Structure formats: structure tokens, C-alpha cells
């Protein structure tokens, strides 16, 4: 499955592919059931999606011969006129593959607006501001609490803010670790268009996979400023004794984490697998986990 740049371009190229290729397979109850389930969850991890695919085919009597991607393509051809798509994405922390049902035409945090009050949405947007501004794609709970005190809609006290944050994590819009908040894979996939429209040049794409990058490493060359997702860096620099920035060739000084290269992960990023050279195992410092 091709991985393209900005989400909208990805969708457009798939639209063209669909219409030029003629009729996709017909929708069956197994497709509908899969769609219902992914709609309920919002987002599903790759292995879970495959299990659901298998279950739906068995439950509704469809032959489970086709790949998940073809199965999803069929659903997407029907979702296209409704401005919705099932997209594939990658989690920024672990590099795992995810499937999410997203609205293509969104220009705001629409999907959340029925579940959250106006000031809660404002808090979420402020948190996003902090994350965009940060170097490593995180916002501390302290900083978020400070924002809560100066909301324009209506201020929030500490206890209320903590509860809203907890809900946001539970609903899979934010991740939390040791008091630091990051944007979840679901948020990034759902709101890609909104994020790009709102922040424009403030948001950078990963130099390897070309998706928006928050939790990432940055080139130490100030005038270069290229960002690479941590899992993308793990794959791209795996086994390299002398990692270099793909753009300016400056030495890549960050710790390269040691990650399992699963076949699914490489499928998302064909470039990395071709550039991986067969260099002998790197010295100890290379394979040390970052953080």
C-alpha cells in the first residue's frame, strides 16, 4: 500500500485509482459489520483489525481470501461519496500500524464536539498548541493546567481539568505518560487536515514517512531542522555505524532506539527497507534505547 504525503493527496490518489480500476468488489454484510466495529472503536491496531476482518468474514459468510487492504478498499469506495475514509497510520511512540475511520472534509475538531463542552474543546486545542510548539511533541500537565486558568470560554479549576484530561485519554484523543501528554495516533489521523490548516508551517513532516511528526528527533544542524519520527529513525538507521541526516548529511547525533522491524512496519515505509544497508552490527551506543 503506497504511503503518500499529506493525507488529502493520499485520498485523492486512491480515488483516482478506484475510478480508473473500475468496480471494486461489492459491499457485503461482512464489510458493513467491519465498518460498524471500526466506527465504534474509532481506531484499531493492525493485528486487531486483521482479527476483526477474519471474524466478520466468518460471521457473515464471506470468503476470507482477500487481503485486509482490498477489503478496506471496497468499503472506502462506498465511503468516498460520504467524505469518510478508513486510513492507515503509524503510532509515533511504537511505530505500530493502525486503522482509523476519519472524516475527510473536516476543518475542525468535529468528531469530538458532541462529547465535549465548549471550554473542554478549547482546552484540547490549547493542549495541541503546546504540543505543536514543543520540541518533542509533548505538553506537561503543569503547562496545561496553566492554560485552563486562562480559557476564553470558561475557566477550569485543577480538579476539573484533570478529569477532562482523563476523559480525553480514555476516549483516545491524548496519550499520557509520566505527566506528559502527547497527541494520540487517533487525533493525528483524524485531524490531520485541521492540524495542517491551523498550524501550517509550524508543523513539520517526517523526512522518512512524510506524515506529520510530533514525537520526533530533529537534525542538530540548526539551518536544516529536519524531523524524523522515533520509530522511523529506528528503522532508517538500523545497523548503521554512521547515521547521517537524509537532507543535509550532518551526523545524526540522537540515540537510535532498538526496535523490532516487523514486516508490517516496513510495508508502511518501503524506502527504509531499500536504504537499510547490510552494515555489520553497530557498536553498543547505537542500539541503546533512547529515553
Amino acid at each position, binding site marked *: 500500500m503506497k504511503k503518500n504525503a499529506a493525507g488529502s493527496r493520499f485520498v485523492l490518489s486512491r480515488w483516482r485509482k478506484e475510478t480508473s480500476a473500475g468496480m471494486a468488489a461489492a459491499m457485503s*454484510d461482512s464489510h458493513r459489520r467491519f465498518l*460498524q466495529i471500526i*466506527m*465504534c472503536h474509532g481506531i484499531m491496531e493492525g493485528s486487531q483489525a486483521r482479527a476483526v476482518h477474519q471474524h466478520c468474514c466468518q460471521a457473515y459468510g464471506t470468503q476470507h481470501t482477500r487481503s485486509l487492504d482490498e477489503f478496506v478498499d471496497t468499503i472506502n469506495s462506498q465511503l468516498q461519496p460520504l467524505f469518510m475514509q478508513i486510513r492507515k497510520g503509524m503510532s509515533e511512540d511504537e511505530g505500530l500500524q493502525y486503522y482509523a475511520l476519519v472524516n475527510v472534509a473536516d476543518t475542525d475538531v468535529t468528531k469530538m464536539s458532541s462529547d465535549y463542552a*465548549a471550554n473542554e474543546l478549547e482546552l484540547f486545542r490549547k493542549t495541541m498548541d503546546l504540543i505543536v510548539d514543543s520540541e518533542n511533541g509533548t505538553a506537561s500537565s503543569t503547562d496545561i493546567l496553566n492554560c485552563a486558568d486562562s480559557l476564553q470560554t470558561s475557566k477550569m479549576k485543577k480538579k476539573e481539568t484533570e478529569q477532562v484530561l482523563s476523559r480525553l485519554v480514555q476516549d483516545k484523543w491524548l496519550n499520557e505518560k509520566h505527566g506528559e501528554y502527547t497527541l494520540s495516533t487517533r487525533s493525528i489521523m483524524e485531524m490531520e487536515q485541521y492540524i495542517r490548516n491551523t498550524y501550517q508551517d509550524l508543523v513539520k513532516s517526517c523526512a522518512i514517512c512524510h506524515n506529520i511528526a510530533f514525537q520526533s528527533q530533529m537534525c542538530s544542524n540548526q539551518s536544516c531542522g529536519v524531523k524524523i519520527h522515533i520509530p522511523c529513525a529506528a528503522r532508517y538507521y538500523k545497523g548503521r555505524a554512521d547515521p547521517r541526516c537524509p537532507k543535509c548529511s550532518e551526523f545524526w547525533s540522537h540515540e537510535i532506539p532498538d526496535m523490532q522491524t516487523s514486516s508490517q512496519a516496513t510495508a508502511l515505509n518501503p524506502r527504509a527497507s531499500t536504504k537499510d544497508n547490510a552494515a555489520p552490527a553497530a557498536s553498543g551506543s547505537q542500539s541503546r534505547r533512547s529515553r
Partner: protein
Amino acid sequence: MFPNKSIEMVMEEEEDVSFTQPSSSQVQRGLDRLTPAQVDQKVAEVVQFILIKDQKKLPMKRADIVKHVIKEYKNIYPEIMKRVNMKFEKVFGLKLVEIDAKNHAYILVNKLEQDPQQPDLMSSGHPKTGLLFVILSVIFMKGGVVKESVVWNVLKKLRVDQGEKHEEFGDVKKLVTEEFVRQRYLEYIRIPHTEPQEHEFRWGLRAEKEVSKVKMLEFVGQLHAQDPQVWTKQYKEARAAEGERGQL
């Protein structure tokens, strides 16, 4: 836990006064004036609106749909809704069902054959649905209506106390008597002439439409390691209800 009260209150006050259904000739004239793309766009917007509203499991009023989405396309409302229904069935396997003919309120129900692995309610994986399922099964096994004290006692045995704040569910009484009722899964009716006030629980309209009583009986049967047919009365009722649901 923090319901968007102001929006909800406004929605509840909407009345369907200004809207009368256009005639079929009016609809045709309206369609002739628009491009197919315009109509498709509007259909897509209505579908999205309904899906978002349905996330909260609250019934949606026709007045809301007209006011907030259809707007100036009011004159082709029947055609839009016809296509919206087709989309829901063909793409999602869902169906818009009117639960209140007077106020024109709708819910989305699952039209697909019951998923053999998970009864409909369980698919969201939310702990609340498990709790609801237990309550529904109690009501069902007791013949369709129970005094609230029966439900509270059952829950207490499961360490869910309506008097205490629960780790997962928070204010249990509020969840059961307000949220589940608002979503039309349960009915919480005052028993007249009771002092102190007592209430009884019944299945709500959404539960009637969405939950398979046959599945429920199987679930209860598994719990008690019994064949569902042992409970003859409930079994007959379940089979009858299944037939009715199939005609949706």
C-alpha cells in the same frame, strides 16, 4: 460526566412547528434546480450529522436535522432522507427507525443479522454496556418489569452500589436512571401511591429494537449452565420478539 447541557437544552426545545412535508411535485421541481453534486453533498452532511448524534445514543429529532443540516434544501427533504436511508443500509447496515411518531424522533439501529460472537450492545466494548446488559437481563427474566429495589440488589451483589461512587461508573444511580433512560435503553417509571416514592424498570424502546432476546436468554443460560428452553415463558417471548425485530 460533563454533559454539554446548554446545547442539549436547546435541542430539546426545538419544535417541529414550521416544517410541513413538501409534495412530490415540489420535490421534483426542487431536484431539477440542483446539481447531483449538491444533492450528494447534502446527503453526506446529513449522514455525518446523524452518525455524530448517534454516538451519544440520543434520539435525534427531525426538526434538528432540518434546522442544522438540511436548511435551504428543505423543499427536497423527503428525497434527501430517502437517499440517507439508502446509504445507511447499503454502506453501514444500519437503519433509521422512528421511535416517536408525534415528535418525529429517530434512532439508528443495526439491521444486520446478529453478530454471533457479540450481541449488539457489547460491540462498543464499553464497561457501561456490560452493566446495562445485566440490568436488561434481570428485567427480562422477571417478566419485563421489576421494582427498582430488585435491580439495586442485583447490582450490589456485583459490588456496584447505587449509593456509593463507583470507580468505573461514577454515580451509578444517575447512570442507570438518567443516562440509560435518556438513551432509551431503559424506562424508569414511578409507581403511583408509593410512599416513599418507588419506581419500576422496563426495557426502553431502543433496547427493544436493538437487543436480541434470544441472545439474552442464551447469555443467561450460559450463566446458569441451563438450556434457554428451560425458561419456557421467556423463551416464547424471545422467539416472538425476534420475529418482530426481523420485520424492521
